[in-house]
């Protein structure tokens, strides 16, 4: 399946890009994707972030639907 992944703030700084397209042969949970991302970007191990799937915060057991928009969100700083 194909996902678009958005990176924000200090996470975009760590990955060096604001978005990428991600291909996977298998169905994945949020936890699976997180492991793959930490493998590709080891620097993310030191950063706090949450993952949103289609604009909703999701926990690690959440199965990612096809064509989902994934976002890695560092700590919020509004206000």
């Amino acid at each position, binding site marked *: 399946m194909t996902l678009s992944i*958005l990176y*924000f*703030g*200090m996470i975009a700084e760590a990955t060096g890009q604001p978005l990428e397209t991600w291909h996977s042969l298998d169905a994945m949970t949020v936890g699976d994707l997180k492991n793959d991302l930490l493998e590709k970007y080891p620097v993310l191990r030191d950063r706090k972030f949450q993952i*949103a799937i289609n*604009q*909703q915060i999701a926990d690690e057991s959440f199965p990612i639907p096809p064509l989902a928009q994934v*976002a890695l*969100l*560092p*700590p*919020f*700083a*509004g*206000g």
Partner: protein
Amino acid sequence: MGHKPKKVFVEGPISPQFVAESIAKHQSKTSIGAHNIFLGQIRADAKVGGVVTGIEYSAYPEMAEQIFHQIREAAFAQYELTCLHIYHSLGLVPTGEISLFVFVSSPHRRATFEALEFLVEEIKAKVPIFGKELLGNEGDFAWKENT
């Protein structure tokens, strides 16, 4: 409920003049007895790397607009409000300038106190807005994190 989603983000600082115009627009609503306004202003905090000269705000806009809408609906459901407006800056807001403007109006003051505090806490905790604090004059920066 179903209030229409409203535009929250503005480019750059929010001016005192904009606040005045928002207040003036509510003077024809004569059921209002109390307004309560919160303004977030950028502090010149001293950090490792230098003094904060401004914050560069970014956001995940599609998600942020949804969350702002949910927060607004929750406030209208919980408190007796006549009006409720939220504005937040994107881009650079220099030290001393305003980045957040929350404005609630009600027939009675009690609802405005409770609603305003609820809104500010919810916005800080739940909306995907990110802030890069610019430090000193040599390009240093730090990422802001709400507590």
